[in-house]
C-alpha cells in the first residue's frame, strides 16, 4: 500500500560542511525508530570511510521514516541526504528536485557560510519551502539569535518559525518533526497517469548490480514492470522495488510522491544517468522531466603511479571507482618524464581530491598527480574549434586565434580582519569584484575568477590567509577569452612534458622562475652542466643553470675493489631505468615528482 500524497513529506537537509547535517539526520532516524540504538553508528547515511571522515556526502541517500504526528496520523517522511559540495552541483540540484522542502541547518556557533548560501539558492530555485534549523545549541558558544539574524540578513529568509535544536543531545527534535508536517508541503502527483519518475542517483552494489534511487512523480513502479530510461533510450525489467529505513526493505511498489530504489539487472552505472526520467515502456509519459544534462568534468589532471610497475593496478583501481562514479573520466596517457598514467577529468577540486585519496587509501597506490588544469576552448586561425584537456595537446601559438577559459563566480565569507588579504589574493588571481557586503563583523565577497587560477592552490592560500576562518564556494559561470600561453619547462633544451602548464601571460614569468629555481634544487649535480628553462613558444622567460659537479671519483681502487665497483656500475645501469634522459644528462624521475609534489609555494 502506498501512502496518500497528503501524508508524505519529502525533504532534503542542506548545510555547510561540519554544521551537523549528518548528526541531525541520525537523530531524526533514531527518533522515528528507523534503527535501534544499538544499530546506530555515527552518521549512518555516510557509507564510505572518506564521507565519514571528511564529513561530506558524495552519493545522495534517502531514508523513509514513519512519524506519527500530534494529529494522530502516521506520515511518511523521505529524508534526502545530498552531496552538499558544488563539485556535485548537478547531483545536488537533482536531489533537491526530488523534494518539496529543505531543512537549512546552520551551526549556532558559526552562522551562515559560503556553502550554505549556494545550497539555499539551489533549494529556492527548486521552489522549496525551507525550515531554518539552528543546530548545536548544546554548545556554550551557541548564539541562536545571531545565527537567525544572519540567515535573515544574508539569505533573506524569514526565521520566525526557525527551530533551535541539538542533533547531538536530541533537544527540540520533537518540535522539528512536527514542523516538518506542518510547515512543509505534501508532494503533488497523479496515481492514474503513466509512470514518471526521476532518477536521483545510482550506485554499484556488488550483489544487486546498479541500484537506482528514484522519486516517483506520477503512476507506480512495480516489480516486473518494463521501464524505459528516456534520455538513454534503454529499457529494462524491474527486478526489485524497495526503500531504505536506512536498511534495504523490499516493497511491492512505489507510488506517486514516494522515494525508494529499484534494481533492474544493470551492470554499468553509466547507463543510469542522474536526472534521467524513468517511464513505463508500454504507457509512456508525454514528456520527460526538465533539466537533464550529463555531468561534465571541469578539472583535469594526470595521475601516474610512482612505481611504474603499478600502472595496471592503477588502471584496475580507477575502473573500480568509475563503477560507482559516472562523472569520473579517464584515459591512458604516456609521459616521457613520468611514464604511463591516466589523464583524468573531475567535476571539481574536491572530486579530484576524493578520487586521489580513495586510490591511495582503498587501493594502496602511491600516485604522482600533475598540476590540475581546466578545459580550454580554442578558436584556431583556420576557423576550427578545439577543446584542450591537457596542456601537452596545445597547438603551436601561431595556429591559435583565441583561447577561452572557464570563469567561476566565487562566494567567500570571512571575518573582516582577513578581508584585506583575501581581496589581494583575488586580485592576484585576476579576479573581478562583483559584490562586497558586511554581515555583522563578517564580510561576504563575491568575485569572478578564472578557474585556472583557482585550481592550483587558491583554496590552500585562502585557508592560510584567513587561518581557516573563511569559507569558499563557487559555481562555473561562463567562458571568456584570456591572454593565455602554454609554458614549458626545458631541461637541456628538451621539454619536460609533465611540467607543461597553461598560464596567463602576466603570471608566466613568476611561475616559470619559481619552477626553474625549484628544479635546480631538486636535480642532483652531474658531470655536465644542466640548463633549466621556462619557455613560452620559443621565448625563454626564466633560466637557471646547474653547474657541473666539481669532483666525483673514488680515491682508492685496487685489485680487491674491482668486483665490487663493477657490480656498483651494473646497479647504476639498472637504476637508469628510473631516469629520463635530457640531452646528455639523466635526471632521476624523483626530481620531477618532488617538483610536482611541492605545489606552488616554496
Amino acid at each position, binding site marked *: 500500500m502506498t501512502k496518500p500524497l497528503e501524508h508524505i513529506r519529502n525533504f532534503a537537509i542542506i548545510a555547510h560542511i561540519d554544521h551537523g547535517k549528518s548528526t541531525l539526520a541520525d537523530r531524526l532516524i533514531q527518533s522515528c525508530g528507523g534503527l535501534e540504538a544499538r544499530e546506530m553508528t555515527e552518521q549512518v547515511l555516510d557509507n564510505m570511510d572518506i564521507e565519514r571522515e571528511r564529513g561530506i556526502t558524495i552519493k545522495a541517500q534517502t531514508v523513509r521514516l514513519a512519524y506519527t504526528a500530534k494529529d494522530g496520523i502516521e506520515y511518511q517522511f523521505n529524508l534526502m541526504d545530498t552531496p552538499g559540495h558544488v563539485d556535485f552541483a548537478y547531483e545536488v540540484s537533482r536531489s533537491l528536485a526530488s523534494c518539496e522542502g529543505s531543512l537549512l541547518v546552520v551551526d549556532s556557533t558559526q552562522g551562515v557560510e559560503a556553502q550554505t548560501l549556494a545550497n539555499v539558492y539551489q533549494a529556492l530555485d527548486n521552489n522549496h519551502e525551507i525550515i531554518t534549523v539552528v543546530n548545536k545549541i548544546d554548545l556554550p558558544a551557541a548564539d541562536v539569535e545571531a545565527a537567525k539574524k544572519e540567515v535573515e540578513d544574508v539569505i533573506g529568509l524569514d526565521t520566525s518559525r526557525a527551530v533551535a535544536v541539538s542533533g547531538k543531545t536530541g533537544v527540540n527534535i520533537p518540535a522539528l518533526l512536527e514542523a516538518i508536517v506542518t510547515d512543509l508541503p505534501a508532494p503533488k502527483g497523479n496515481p492514474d497517469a503513466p509512470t514518471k519518475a526521476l532518477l536521483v542517483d545510482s550506485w554499484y552494489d556488488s550483489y544487486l548490480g546498479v541500484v537506482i534511487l528514484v522519486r516517483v512523480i506520477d503512476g507506480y513502479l512495480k516489480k516486473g514492470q518494463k521501464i524505459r530510461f528516456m534520455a538513454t533510450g534503454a529499457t529494462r525489467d524491474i527486478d526489485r522495488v524497495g526503500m531504505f529505513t536506512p536498511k534495504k526493505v523490499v516493497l511491492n511498489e512505489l507510488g506517486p510522491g514516494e522515494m525508494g530504489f529499484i534494481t533492474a539487472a544493470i551492470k554499468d552505472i553509466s547507463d543510469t544517468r542522474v536526472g534521467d526520467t524513468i517511464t513505463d515502456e508500454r504507457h509512456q509519459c508525454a514528456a520527460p522531466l526538465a533539466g537533464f544534462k550529463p555531468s561534465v568534468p571541469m578539472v583535469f589532471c594526470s595521475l601516474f603511479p610512482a612505481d611504474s610497475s603499478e600502472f595496471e593496478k592503477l588502471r584496475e583501481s580507477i575502473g573500480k571507482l568509475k563503477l560507482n562514479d559516472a562523472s569520473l573520466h579517464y584515459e591512458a596517457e604516456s609521459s616521457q618524464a613520468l611514464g604511463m598514467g591516466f589523464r583524468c577529468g573531475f567535476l571539481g577540486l574536491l572530486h579530484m581530491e576524493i578520487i586521489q585519496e580513495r586510490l591511495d587509501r582503498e587501493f594502496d597506490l602511491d600516485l604522482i598527480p600533475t598540476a590540475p588544469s581546466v578545459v580550454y576552448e580554442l578558436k584556431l586561425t583556420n576557423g576550427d574549434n578545439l577543446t584542450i584537456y591537457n596542456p601537452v595537446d596545445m597547438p603551436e601559438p601561431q595556429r591559435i586565434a583565441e583561447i577561452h577559459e572557464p570563469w567561476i563566480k566565487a562566494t567567500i565569507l570571512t571575518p573582516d580582519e582577513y578581508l584585506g588579504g583575501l581581496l589581494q589574493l583575488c586580485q592576484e588571481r585576476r579576479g573581478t569584484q562583483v559584490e562586497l557586503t558586511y554581515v555583522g563583523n563578517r564580510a561576504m565577497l563575491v568575485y569572478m575568477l578564472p578557474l585556472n587560477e583557482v585550481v592550483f592552490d587558491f583554496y590552500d592560500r585562502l585557508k592560510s590567509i584567513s587561518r581557516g576562518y573563511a569559507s569558499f564556494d563557487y559555481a562555473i559561470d561562463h567562458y571568456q577569452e584570456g591572454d593565455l600561453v602554454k609554458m614549458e619547462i626545458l631541461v637541456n633544451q628538451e621539454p619536460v612534458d609533465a611540467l607543461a602548464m597553461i598560464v596567463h601571460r602576466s603570471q608566466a614569468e613568476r611561475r616559470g622562475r619559481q619552477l626553474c629555481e625549484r628544479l635546480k634544487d631538486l636535480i642532483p649535480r652531474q658531470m655536465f652542466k644542466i640548463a633549466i628553462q621556462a619557455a613560452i613558444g620559443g621565448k625563454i622567460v626564466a633560466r637557471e643553470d646547474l653547474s657541473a659537479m666539481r669532483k666525483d671519483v673514488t680515491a682508492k681502487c685496487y*685489485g680487491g675493489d674491482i668486483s665490487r665497483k663493477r657490480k656498483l656500475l651494473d646497479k647504476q645501469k639498472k637504476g637508469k631505468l628510473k631516469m629520463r634522459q635530457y640531452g646528455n644528462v639523466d635526471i632521476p624521475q624523483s626530481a620531477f615528482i618532488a617538483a610536482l609534489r611541492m605545489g606552488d609555494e616554496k
Partner: protein
Amino acid sequence: MSVIQTHPESSFGLYIHWPFCLSKCPYCDFNSHVHDRVDHDAWREALVREINHYAAMTPGRVLSSIFFGGGTPSLMHPETVAAAIDEAQKRWNFSNDIEITLEANPTSVEADKFTAFRRAGVNRVSLGIQSLREKDLEFLGRKHNVGEARRAIEIAGATFDRFSFDLIYARPQQTVAAWKEELEEALTLSGGHISLYQLTIEPGTAFFAQHARGDFMIPNDMAAGDLYEATQDILGAAGMPAYEISNHAKPGEESRHNMTYWRYGDYVGVGPGAHGRLTLDGQKKATRAHRAPEIWLNDVTAKGHGAHPFEDVTPDQRMTEALMMGLRLSEGIPLSRLEHESGRHRDTFFDAKKIKALSDEGYLTLSDTHIAATASGRQRLNALLSYLVG
C-alpha cells in the same frame, strides 16, 4: 701445461694479505682485524701453502711484482715475509726487475724491522704516513707521531731501493692553504712516489657513524674539487704528475704492482679476503678468499686454499672492468686491450653520441689506438663511467 692467453703486454702480480692490525683506523674499510695473539708459524705455513695452490694453476708465468698489503704487513715476522717470497720464487719465474713492496706503518718498532724485511727480499716500502700534523694524526686514529713519521721515511730511504708514502687529505676543516703547505713539506721528504687520497667516509667504519651523527663534516664536491686541483698543480710542478687518480710518481717510479691492476692484468690474491683475476685457458676468473682470518686459516690447513669457488668474468664484464680500471690512468687504455678482453671490435665499444659529448666537454680523448680520460674527466670519473657504460 695450460695455454696462457693473457694480453701480451700484461704483467703478472702476487698480492699477499696480512689481516692483522694493532688497532683499527676509523677511516679504514679494509679487511683488518685486531688480535691479541697471532700464531705466526701457522700463518707462515698457510700463506706458503696457498701460494703453492695458485702456482700449480699458473705454471710458467713470470711474476713481475709481489705486494704485501693489509691490515698491517709490517707486523709480520720477517721470516714469514721471506718464506712467502722464497716460495713464490721457487714456483714461478721472477722477472729481472721484480718489485716487492710491503706496506708499513711508521711506528719506531716497525721501522726498526726494515733491514730484516730488506734481507727477506722486500725492495720497496709504502708507508702509511697519512699526515704531517699531530692533531690530524690523532683525528685519523694513527699510532705514530710526526717525528716517527719523518724518521721512518728516512730509514726507508736508506734501506730500500724505492719507497712511497700515503697522505690523506680533504680532512675536516682543512683549507687549501694549509694543505698546500703540508704537501710542500711532504715533497721534500719524498722519494719518487707518493699516494694522495681524499678522505672518504666508507660504510662500516667508525667515521661513518660519527659522520652520520654530525660529529664532523668533510668538504663538499666544490671544496673537494679545490683541494684536488691544488694537489694536481703542486705535484705537476714538482715533476710528479698523477699517473693514476691518487698516485703520483717521477717517470719510471710508478708502482708496477698497482699498474697490473689498472692495466687489468692477472694477479694472484693470497690471504684472507684477497681477490684475484686469473686468465685460465682463456677464461678470466675472479677469485676471492674467505674474509674471516680463522676460517681462511682452517680452510688452507684442511684443503690447501681458502678460496670461494671461482667466478667466470664474462666478456662484457671484462670490458667494464678494463675500462673502469684503465681510465684511472693518465696513459689511458689501448683499444687493443679492450678488444682482447671483450672479444669485440673497437667500432662496437662506444655510443658515438656519448663519446662526442664527453670529448666536447673535455673529459675524454679517443684516438685510433687509445681511449683516455683527461685530468678533468678523471676528477669526475664515477659519473663519467656511469654515463659511458650505462
